[in-house]
């Protein structure tokens, strides 16, 4: 037998060599190390069974090595080599679980004895280990046997218990059977001689009190009583199931689903049989009802006035309601962020992710983009969907369209802006009126007619402006129905031109007109289109007045027809606009006129023309002038909301 491996640790080469030779002779596999540190490396690598170490070494001492070995692998046996007079150290090493110690110079016999001691110890330990392991196996085997016995006993008891319970119920003269009445099924208990022993209440009500009768009596289309499910159960010793036709207590046919169960006693003989059946029609009715209520929920799911999508943990849409599918649509595996936001990755603030995390409901407000690129302002709420174990498997996301509410809010906030802007203009106008009134009253006092006249002109001008502003505000504040009428284009243009020529000539501005003849009629709301064009004319006049570089100012007014469109072309040689002003000109509350503008005029003109399905184009150059081209279709194709 191959002996154990042994590690010799000594700083002296001679001792290592001598020991190596003698121990190899004894049949050991010998390893050597010249220091404690090296020894530990070898131990880690080869795990020798025995270590023979010098106690006194430079660097790591034998005692330290012993400690280290015991810390690592307690099974390694250590023999210490001590010099004369090291008794103290020798005893200390024994306390530290060294197996033995030998003294230098090493006597082969003593070494041999010592090694035998070690061998014995190792062998003993192995035995103990084996024994312990055996014991464990023994206990395991015994336990398994016990469990098996216990199990058989339990099963036996269970079968016994059940059998006796059913026997008990059956024997209790219709009393105990009420226990089974809670079942929505027909339950009956049968004896081996194929007689009915007991039935439950639903059975009694529908099929009659058949106790004492033959098990096969209620079955239709069964020729021999041995063909009944119960008879088959006793015959085959196993449960039977199938669809049968029976007659109820009034003789009407009834299709049923039957399931039977044999009940055995402890000696494995079938002593009873249980028959459980349910009316197939009833079952179908229930199934129908279920389907119906499912449909109802589906309808609810589809009809609620919001978009519903069900999302899995990867944010893929697994289900969605009709409304969602109609406006957003999705394909299998589509992610909600792609469908809702046309994004490639998850949104940063994701309420669905939060709900997956803690199962709470979250909501957020955001803008989503539908199939047709229409944007909806939505309020999103989430709710967790759990399986029967209570784990969140999906999250439902409900998005309510609040676009209209938001638009209303925008309208309200612009109304607020309007009030601010208007109140500022009104302050200016009122101050001007004060001025006019002062001129009139002081003029009367001083009897200077010129001053009164001057004051009166101011008052007239300002009252006119206030009127105009109030009309603008009313137009903005109130959505009025347009009054459509057929209007002769030339007549309409002439009326406008006459009015604007008078206005322009007051400021020394000339107005030239060029109208196509026989343009015919177009369908407009005469009043509002008139005021829209007046607004543009007034702008042209103001632009001329603001320009101080040119000696003469004029406005050209052309009206022509292009295909199905009437074109009003109004061009001035006034101050002109820079790019920024031009871009903002139709914006609400934008005004380049300081005190005189409310920022409503051009906004409203533009809106009116839009309502007529038309457009306004503006070209302008600073210091050269501005040209407005207004296109209005002869017959409006669709009236935008």
């Amino acid at each position: 037998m191959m002996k154990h491996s042994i590690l010799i640790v000594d700083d002296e080469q001679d001792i290592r060599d001598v020991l190596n030779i003698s121990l190899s002779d004894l049949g050991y596999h010998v390893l050597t190390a010249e220091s404690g540190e090296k020894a530990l490396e070898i131990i880690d690598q080869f795990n020798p069974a025995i270590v023979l170490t010098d106690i006194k070494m430079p660097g790591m001492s034998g005692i330290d090595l012993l400690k280290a070995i015991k810390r690592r692998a307690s099974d390694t046996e250590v023999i210490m080599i001590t010099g004369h007079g090291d008794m103290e150290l020798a005893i200390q090493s024994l306390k530290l679980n060294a197996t033995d110690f030998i003294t230098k110079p090493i006597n082969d016999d003593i070494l041999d004895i010592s090694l035998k001691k070690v061998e014995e110890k190792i062998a003993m330990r192995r035995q103990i280990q084996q024994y312990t392991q055996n014991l464990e196996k023994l206990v395991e085997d015994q336990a398994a046997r016990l469990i098996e016995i216990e199990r058989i006993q339990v099963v036996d008891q269970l079968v016994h218990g059940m059998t006796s319970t059913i026997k008990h119920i059956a024997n209790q003269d219709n009393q105990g059977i009420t226990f089974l009445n809670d079942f929505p099924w027909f339950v009956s208990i049968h004896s081996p001689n194929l007689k009915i022993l007991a039935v439950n209440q639903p059975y009694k009500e529908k099929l009659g009190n058949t106790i004492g009768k033959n098990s096969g009596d209620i079955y239709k289309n069964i020729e021999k009583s041995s063909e009944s499910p119960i008879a088959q159960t006793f015959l085959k010793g196993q449960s039977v199931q199938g669809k049968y036709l029976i007659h109820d207590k009034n003789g009407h046919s009834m299709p049923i689903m039957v399931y039977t169960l044999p009940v055995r006693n402890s000696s494995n003989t079938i002593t009873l049989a249980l028959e459980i059946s349910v009316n197939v029609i009833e079952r179908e009715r229930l199934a129908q009802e279920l389907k119906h209520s499912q449909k109802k929920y589906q309808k609810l799911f589809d009809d609620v006035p919001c978009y519903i999508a069900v999302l899995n943990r990867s944010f893929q849409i697994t289900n969605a309601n009709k409304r969602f599918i109609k406006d957003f649509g999705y394909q299998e595996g589509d992610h909600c962020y792609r469908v809702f936001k046309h994004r490639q990755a998850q949104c940063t603030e994701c309420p669905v992710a939060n709900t997956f995390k803690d199962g709470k409901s979250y909501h957020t407000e955001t803008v989503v983009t539908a199939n047709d690129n229409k944007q909806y302002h939505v309020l999103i709420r989430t709710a967790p969907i759990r399986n029967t174990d209570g784990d969140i498997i999906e999250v439902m996301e409900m998005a309510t369209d609040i676009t209209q509410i938001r638009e209303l809010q925008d309208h309200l906030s612009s109304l607020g802006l309007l009030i601010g802007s208007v109140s500022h203009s009104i302050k200016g106008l009122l101050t001007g009126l004060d001025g006019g009134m002062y001129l009139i009253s002081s003029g009367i006092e001083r009897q200077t007619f010129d001053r009164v006249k001057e004051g009166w002109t101011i008052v007239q001008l300002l009252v006119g402006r206030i009127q105009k502003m109030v009309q603008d505000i009313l137009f903005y504040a109130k959505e009025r129905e347009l009054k459509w009428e057929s209007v002769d284009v030339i007549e309409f243009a002439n009326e406008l031109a006459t009015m604007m020529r008078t206005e322009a000539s007051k400021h020394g501005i000339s107005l030239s007109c060029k109208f196509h003849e026989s343009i015919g009629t177009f369908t407009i709301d005469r009043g509002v289109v008139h005021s829209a064009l007046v607004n543009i004319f007034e702008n042209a006049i103001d632009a001329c007045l603001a320009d101080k570089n040119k000696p003469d100012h004029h406005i050209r007014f052309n009206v022509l027809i292009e295909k199905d469109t009437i074109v009003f072309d109004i061009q001035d040689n006034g101050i002109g606009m820079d790019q920024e002003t031009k871009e903002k000109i139709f914006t609400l509350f934008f005004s380049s006129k300081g005190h005189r503008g409310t920022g409503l005029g051009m906004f409203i003109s533009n809106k009116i023309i839009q309502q007529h399905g038309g457009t306004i184009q503006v070209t302008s150059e600073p210091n050269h002038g501005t040209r407005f081209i207004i296109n209005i279709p002869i017959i409006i194709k669709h009236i935008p909301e």
Partner: protein
Amino acid sequence: MAKKVLIIDDDPIIIKYLTTLFHDNGYETLVANDGLEGMTVLKSEKPDLITLDLEMPEEWGPRFYRKMAKESELKDIPVIVISGLSGSQYSIKKAVATIKKPFDKEELLKIVKQTIGE
């Protein structure tokens, strides 16, 4: 000699009103349509008092005032702000008074009289 008031406003009607009002009460007036023009007039004419609108197209009130306050010989000329802007009282703190449009002409005249006399 009559005291001179410089009226800086872009609204011709208000200018007409203020010039008439000040003439009737024995003051001379100077007129500017915006801050830039105002500065030119200010330097050449050295008025005794300025009424200043805040919102004007070319150069508006506060900026005009900042420029004026940098010139040592101009910075002590009293300024009355006349504006329709809400919160106008905060825009030029060193103004003698800030009057909101529409204003009470008697009150305006009282302040002018207190500041530069008849």
